[in-house]
C-alpha cells in the first residue's frame, strides 16, 4: 500500500507556560512512501516524528493536510477503520491475556462478513506466531516473557489482521544493545517476508540507517531530507542532517572560501568551486581524514585510540565548533608516526567528497557550480 502525505500539519494548543501559543508538532509534511517499503522516521526527541506516526495511524487528527492509503483518502477515517497495525514503544500487551489471546484480540473485533470462526482465528494466530517465531510461547502471559519476546508478540498482534500499513513506534528502545541488533534484523526479515508498507519511528540514526529502505529526517516538525540512507549520509541537505547522521559525528569547522580555496584557520586546505566571500561551515566526516606529513590541515594530537581494524585519532583545532575534539577514523596501518607523536602535531590531507560545506548562517548546503547538482534525493 502506497502511503501519501499531503501538506500534513498538526498544531497543538500550547500548555503550561506556552499557554495561548500554538505548538506546531508537524509542519507541512509532504511525501509519498512507495508500496512495500520500510521507512524510518528519524529525528531527535520532540521533533514531531511520533506525532506524525499518530497522524498516520489515526489516533490524532491533522490540523491541515491529507493522508492517502493508495488512492483512498483516510484523513477523516478513525484509527480503527484504517486497517493499520501498530507496535507501541512499551508493546501495550494486555497483561491479563496470554500470548494467543493477545494475538487473537484484533480478530475478535471483526464484524459482519469478515467475522471468523474460532478455528480460523487460531489458524491465523498460529501462522503469524510462526512468522515471528513465538509458537512455543502461546500459553504464557506477557509478564512471563522477555523484552524481545514481548516485542515479537506485539508485532504478531499488529500483523495478524493483515494491516495495510504497519507502524512501529520506537520498537527497539526498550531492548538491550545486543537484542536490539538482533531484533532490527528480525523486523527487516519480517517486513520483507510480508511486503507490508512499514513506517517506524526512532531517534537512533544507526538503527534507522541499518534497516530502512528510506529515511525521513525531521527537526522541529519539519522534514529535513528524505532519501536512501547512504544518499542522505553522503549528501546531506543541511548541517543538521549532516550532524545527526553518523557515528562518530561529523567534525565541523568555522571556515572561509576565498578564490577557490577552502580556508580552515586561515590555512588553505582544499580546492573548492563553491562561491567564496562569506564564512562557511566545513563539515568533515571522520573517515575524510588521511594522515599525511605534508597535509594542509595541522592539528594538535590528543590521543590515538586503536580499535583493531580502525584507528581513531583524537586531536584539537582552534577552528573547530560544536565538539571539543576532532575524531578521525583511519586505517590501522596509517597511524601517525613517532615524529608526529613526539611533536604533538598531526597533519591531515582531506578526501574532497567527505568534506561538506554549509552556509554559516542558515546551515543550508553549499554546492559547487561545477559538480553535479543533486537536490533532495529520492523524493518520489
Amino acid at each position, binding site marked *: 500500500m502506497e502511503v501519501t502525505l499531503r501538506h500534513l500539519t498538526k498544531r497543538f494548543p500550547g500548555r503550561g507556560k506556552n499557554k495561548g501559543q500554538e505548538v506546531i*508538532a508537524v509542519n507541512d509534511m509532504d511525501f509519498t512512501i512507495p508500496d512495500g517499503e520500510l521507512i524510518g522516521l528519524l529525528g531527535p*526527541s*520532540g*521533533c*514531531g516524528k511520533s506525532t506524525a506516526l*499518530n497522524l498516520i495511524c489515526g*489516533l*490524532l*487528527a491533522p490540523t491541515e493536510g491529507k493522508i492517502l492509503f493508495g488512492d483512498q483518502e483516510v484523513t477523516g477515517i478513525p484509527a480503527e477503520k484504517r486497517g493499520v497495525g501498530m507496535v507501541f514503544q512499551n508493546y501495550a500487551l494486555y497483561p491479563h491475556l496470554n500470548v494467543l489471546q493477545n494475538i487473537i484480540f484484533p480478530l475478535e473485533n471483526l464484524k459482519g462478513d469478515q467475522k471468523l470462526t474460532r478455528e480460523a482465528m487460531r489458524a491465523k494466530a498460529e501462522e503469524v506466531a510462526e512468522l515471528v517465531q513465538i509458537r512455543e510461547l502461546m500459553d504464557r502471559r506477557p509478564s512471563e516473557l522477555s523484552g524481545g519476546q514481548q516485542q515479537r508478540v506485539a508485532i504478531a498482534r499488529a500483523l495478524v489482521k493483515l494491516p495495510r500499513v504497519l507502524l512501529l513506534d520506537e520498537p527497539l528502545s526498550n531492548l538491550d544493545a545486543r537484542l536490539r541488533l538482533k531484533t532490527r534484523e528480525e523486523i527487516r526479515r519480517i517486513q520483507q517476508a510480508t511486503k507490508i508498507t512499514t513506517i517506524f519511528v526512532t531517534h537512533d540514526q544507526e538503527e534507522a540507517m541499518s534497516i530502512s529502505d528510506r529515511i525521513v529526517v525531521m527537526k522541529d516538525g519539519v522534514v529535513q531530507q528524505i532519501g536512501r540512507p547512504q544518499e542522505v549520509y553522503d549528501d546531506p541537505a543541511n548541517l543538521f542532517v549532516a550532524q545527526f547522521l553518523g557515528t562518530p559525528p561529523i567534525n565541523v569547522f568555522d571556515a572561509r572560501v576565498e578564490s577557490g580555496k577552502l580556508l580552515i584557520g586561515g590555512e588553505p586546505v582544499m580546492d573548492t568551486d563553491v562561491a567564496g566571500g562569506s564564512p562557511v561551515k566545513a563539515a568533515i566526516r571522520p573517515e575524510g581524514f588521511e594522515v599525511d606529513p605534508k597535509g594542509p590541515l595541522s592539528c594538535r594530537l590528543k590521543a590515538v585510540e586503536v580499535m583493531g581494524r580502525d584507528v581513531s585519532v583524537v586531536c584539537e583545532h582552534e577552528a573547530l565548533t560544536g565538539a571539543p575534539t576532532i575524531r578521525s577514523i583511519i586505517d590501522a596501518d596509517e597511524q601517525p608516526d613517532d615524529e608526529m607523536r613526539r611533536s604533538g602535531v598531526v597533519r591531515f590531507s582531506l578526501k574532497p567528497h567527505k568534506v561538506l560545506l554549509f552556509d554559516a548562517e542558515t546551515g543550508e548546503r553549499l554546492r559547487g557550480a561545477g559538480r553535479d547538482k543533486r537536490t533532495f534525493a529520492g523524493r518520489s
Partner: protein
Amino acid sequence: MADTGRDNMEYTGAPSVKERAVKILTMLLLVLWALVVLFPFYWMILTSVKGYGAYNAEYIPKFFTLHPTGENYAEAFSAVPLARYFLNTIVFTLVTTGAMLIVITFAAFAFARLRFPGRDLIFVAFLALMMIPNELVVITNFVTITNLGLRNSFTGLILPSVTSVFYIYLLKENFEQVPDNLYYAAKVDGTSDLKYLFKVLCPICRPTLVTVTILKVIECWNSYVWPRLITDDPRYFLVSNGIQEIRENGFGRENIPAMMAAVVVISLPLLVLFLIFRRKIMEGVARGGLKG
C-alpha cells in the same frame, strides 16, 4: 516520547452523533451527582440564613431567601455552648494528633532503622493488630477508662487513639526509602539516633508526616462514638456530640435554622482544610487511608 501529551491522544476529528450523545449523557450523569453532593451543603447554608419565623412559615420550602440574616449564628453561639464544643474539639484534635505523631515516629524509626532482637517478629505482630476492629475493643476500653475514673476528661478522650498501627506502617515504609548511607554518614559524624531522626529523617519524610497529620485531623474532628461513650458532661463534648445534643435538646427541637447555623460552623473547618490541601488529602486517602 515528548512529542505528544497523554491527554492529546484523542482522535480530535469530528465526533459521530452517537459519540456526542454518549458524551452528553456522561456529562448529565456527572452534573446530576454533583447536584446530589452539593445540594445538602447549599440547603444547610440557605436554611442557616433564613429567619426563624420565615422558615417556619414555609410550608413549601423556598429555594432561596431574599432576607438573609445572621441571627441564627448568634443564636448558635449563645443558646448552646457551641464555642465550647469547638474549643474542646480543637484541643482534642491537636493533642491527639501531636501525641500520635510522636508515638508513631518513634515506633516507625525503631522498625525502619534500628536493629534489635525480634524486630521483624514484633513488626509482624504489629501488622496483625491492624485486623482488630475497633468495635471489639471499645467495650473493654470503656470499662478501663471508667475504672480509672477518667470519664469526662480529656485524658480519657485522648488516650485510646494516640497510636495507629496503620500509620506506623506507612511511616516505616517511607523511612526505609531513605538511603542507609545517610544514616551511616550521620553516625560517622557522631550524630545521635534521636538527632538523626528529627534533623534528617523527619524533614525528608515530611510529605508522609503531613499526610498522616491531615488524615488524623479529619478523623479526630469527626469522631463521635468514643467521645459519646466517655463523656456525658457537656463541658467535655466534642462537636459531633454537641450537634447531637443540640438536636436532642438544643434550641427547642424546632429551631432548625439555628441548628443549621451550628452545622455550618462545625463543617467549615474541614471544608476549608480540604480546599487548601485538596491534592494532599486525596492522595493520602488514596494511599490507603480507610475511613473508620
